[in-house]
């Protein structure tokens, strides 16, 4: 089966997912700051054209009131709609954590299944574009630690589209993380609306010596590192988790069982990050099978610095991944 594709960047891909979903299902709504066309269809254009096409009732720009945004999404979701809310940058979730964590995530449970919150909360983030300490954080570990939420972080435009379609269709609240600095990168994106299942990882590159596990833009860096490692005769398998919570334990275990070695790479601060859960699980499940300790790469334990050189040093670079992979082969 061949799938017709078109070259799009992530902005266009997500836009297409939203448009196709809204076309098919009149209960899908979009809300957030500047999301309607009168305001430019989103600060980077992810929602461009939607209000013109589907009306300003369904695509609503909001005041700068993140609690009110998520509250409106939750309430509308309880009564039959499927809102896709934008919190412009991930750091701004800090002003509406109550709505996300105490309410969206818990209402199904606390109501014994009576009220459900099928919302998507989109947000962008990431270092490397000189945005400084309050606009760049990856905070996915918080949400992954929150029962009731799903956490999704696409690494490329095709996945952005397919995963967004699944998040919209999903009966539970999904956190959808877009990496700002990767917005411009294009890729082949299916023209049709083909959802990519949540909770399932993708083998981005096959390999046999070491497994690199990642998500979001860091997958690209893993692939760069894998190409580098290849030159040294090291065959790296790259797993793109796609969904951080629930993460695809089986797929990761299968790969690491095969390679015996693993390195986890994420942009967020390493300490108490998502990588810790994955490493702990791998060690637990593959205690005698692992040939080396699981490597964990993430940012140092600091806020995101502004100065360009520090910001680049803050980010995990492909070279560090290469080294960490090598280290798993060197030990033991």
């Amino acid at each position, binding site marked *: 089966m061949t799938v017709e594709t078109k070259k799009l960047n992530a902005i266009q891909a997500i836009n297409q997912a939203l448009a196709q979903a809204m076309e098919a299902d009149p209960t899908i*709504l979009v809300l957030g700051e500047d999301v309607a066309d009168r305001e430019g269809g989103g600060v980077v254009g992810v929602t461009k054209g939607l209000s013109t096409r589907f009306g300003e*009732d*369904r695509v*609503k720009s*909001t*005041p700068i*009131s*993140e*609690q*009110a945004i*998520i*509250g*409106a*999404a*939750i*309430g*509308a*979701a*309880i*009564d*039959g*709609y499927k*809102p896709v809310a934008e919190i412009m940058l991930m750091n701004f979730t800090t*002003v509406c954590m*109550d*709505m996300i964590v*105490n*309410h969206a995530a818990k*209402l*199904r*449970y*606390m*109501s*014994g*299944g*009576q*009220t*459900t919150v099928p919302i998507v909360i989109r947000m962008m983030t990431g270092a490397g574009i000189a945005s400084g300490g309050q606009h760049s954080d990856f905070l996915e570990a918080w949400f992954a630690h929150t*029962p*009731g939420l*799903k956490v999704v972080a696409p690494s490329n435009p095709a996945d952005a589209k397919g995963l967004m379609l699944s998040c919209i269709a*999903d*009966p*539970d609240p999904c956190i959808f993380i877009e990496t700002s600095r990767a917005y411009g990168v294009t890729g082949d994106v299916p023209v049709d609306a083909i959802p990519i299942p949540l*909770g399932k990882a993708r083998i981005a590159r096959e390999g046999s010596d070491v497994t690199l596990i990642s998500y979001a833009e860091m997958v690209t860096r893993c692939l760069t590192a894998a190409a580098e490692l290849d030159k040294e005769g090291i065959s790296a398998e790259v797993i793109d988790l796609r969904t951080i*919570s*629930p993460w695809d334990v089986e797929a990761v275990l299968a790969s690491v069982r095969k390679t015996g070695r693993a390195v986890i790479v994420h942009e967020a601060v390493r300490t108490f990050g998502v990588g810790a859960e994955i490493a702990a699980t791998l060690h637990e499940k593959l205690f005698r099978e692992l040939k080396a300790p699981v490597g964990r790469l993430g940012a140092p334990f600091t806020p995101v610095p502004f100065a360009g050189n520090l910001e680049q040093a803050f980010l995990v670079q492909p070279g560090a991944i290469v080294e960490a992979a090598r280290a798993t082969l060197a030990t033991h």
Partner: protein
Amino acid sequence: MTTASPEPNTNAAIPDAATQVDIYRRMSLISQNDEAARKTVKSGRLMMPYYSPKGQEVIPSAVSVNLNDDDRICTIYRGTHDMLAKGVPLRDLWAEMAGRVTGTCKGKGGPMHVTHPASGAILTTGIVGSSMPIANGLAWAAKLSGSKRVTIAYFGDAASNIGAFHESLNLASVWKLPVVFICQNNLFGEHTRFENATSVDQISKRAAGYSMPGVTVDGNDPFKMYAAAHAAINRARDGDGPTLIEAMTFRFYGHVFGDDDHYMTKEEKAAALAKDPLPIFRARLIADGVATDAQLTELDADIRAQIEDAIQFALSSEMPPIEELTRDVYAEAGAA
């Protein structure tokens, strides 16, 4: 009724006789239920944090007679009065307070999270202020779907100082949502006096900052409360947008069960208790010839029996099966 609003309510609606009795019925239900709840907690038969609404029973009673079953309310931890007035069945409520599988939420939510969609009780939150942003969303859904549903957001006086209040009133006004914000001003937030935490003498005055009608009303007077609610609910239902009602009232038994009231004077408490709205309204109904003492006595007794039945039902119900622990986290059973 003081008005701090751009659109004063001039034609105050008056409840007809049947409605007056209906308001009384709800008040009696709330008041008797509260007595039973305090007794049950005190005796140790129920283990729950209990926020008595006694003294505030007029507010939701006079509001709810203006509502349909499918109108929504979002309430708070101090919410049994709001729920009962809106029609949450006694058995389901008690079973939830007792953490039994027969409760509204299978015992998983508890008294602070009672939810009963069939009666429109969509949300009970334990977070101060958080009833409001979600009420907006329910109102938005009603507006989008073209239904005439109205949503009520209940909250306390102290909640009017938290950010969610502000964001919610602003959005409701900008989006012209069919929502009514009802502040139950019982003069205290936990142990803090209204005037020591709130920079305005009437919360309704804040409505002007959102170009929304705002009224302060005697929340212990069924007629005044009815009229204010009637106007605001009609306004919302007619598509004219939100209203802020500040209903002045008093909580008879402190913040939470066990509270020793040390932060108020004996005199002010005694004065408030002397104005118990239930006997006052009862006497008025009789004096006005709306109902006879015998009729109301029978009604009260009926309610008492129902409450007794609900307690028996709750306490003899099963605890939720242990599998419920990991159910309802997501749509499909138990992730992770």
